[in-house]
């Protein structure tokens, strides 16, 4: 659908601009850039969380399943491909073909840029969880483009 494309183009432009803004080319600057992207995603996730059709969640796992199915379909037109948990508040969400990574899936040489393309979505997940009542830490990792994993740690209040 055409409006999906608009978001993907906007996201790519944001990664290119906000992701490279910090004058410090070292790890400190990188961290700040990723933090800006993550923060933007967080704001959007919070707002989106209020707009998603809600269900009553019997337990924490149901919330994560909701993210993997409903949020992912609404935002990326596909479900998450895998969900694992240690049943102690840590979850790993696996997407084998993450749409925001596909444009740069040209092989391992671009792996070091991958975190920039995932930061917004990490924030999106964190923001949605916050609206649903959960504090969390969301990080990501990429082994082979365009597959990626999102690690969600639910923080006990």
């Amino acid at each position, binding site marked *: *659908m*055409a*409006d*999906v*494309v*608009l*978001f993907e*183009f*906007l*996201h790519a*432009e*944001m990664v*290119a*601009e*906000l992701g490279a*803004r910090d004058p410090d080319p070292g790890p400190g600057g990188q961290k700040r850039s990723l933090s*800006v992207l993550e*923060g*933007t995603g967080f*704001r*959007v996730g919070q*707002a*989106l969380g209020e*707009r*998603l*059709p809600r269900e009553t969640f019997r337990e924490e796992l149901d919330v994560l*399943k909701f993210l*993997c*199915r*409903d949020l992912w*379909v*609404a*935002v990326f037109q596909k*479900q*998450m491909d895998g*969900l694992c948990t240690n049943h102690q508040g840590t979850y790993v969400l696996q997407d084998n073909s993450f749409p925001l990574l596909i444009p740069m899936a040209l092989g391992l040489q671009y792996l070091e840029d991958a975190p920039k393309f995932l930061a*917004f979505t990490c924030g999106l997940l964190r923001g949605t969880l916050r609206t649903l009542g959960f504090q969390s830490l969301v990080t990501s990792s990429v082994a082979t483009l365009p597959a990626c994993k999102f690690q969600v740690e639910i923080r006990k209040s």
Partner: protein
Amino acid sequence: MSRPAHRRPEYHKINKDLFVLTYGALVAQLCKDYEKDEDVNKYLDKMGYGIGTRLVEDFLARSCVGRCHSYSEITDIIAQVAFKMYLGITPSVICNNSSRNEFSLILDKNPLVEFVEELPAGRSSLCYCNLLCGIIRGALEMVHLAADVTFLQDRLKGDSVTEIGITFLKKLDEKKYRRKK
């Protein structure tokens, strides 16, 4: 996943909301980074330009528009096909001069400002939707048309309508267009 998520109609709205919300968050971030409205406007235009240069390919692939023979036709396509396709609105087109190279798009509805009631305090010169101008300019440049695109009126600034002005800068070379296939 045990239960398949059916494609519910509300998801379509969420998709639209996603772009609008992301855009809002982007403008907020730029306002944090740049003190002057002109700088934010310039940056939005620049980002829009980057998007436009790539969006045009997507547009041409989806729309299969034929050859255009006038600036008027091109502007109509921008308003009636492109805006409709990507933003779900159809601005009306006005031609502003007799040489037929200056046009206005009048936006009755503007989905980008759906969640914006007014400009932030101290940001009276902010062209909130300036991304759109950059997108149009970038897209036109990729089909070899130079144009100036700016907001002439903005409801967010208190004007009665939102109006985007497109001024085509070079004479449309008909021969050049016929040869392109």
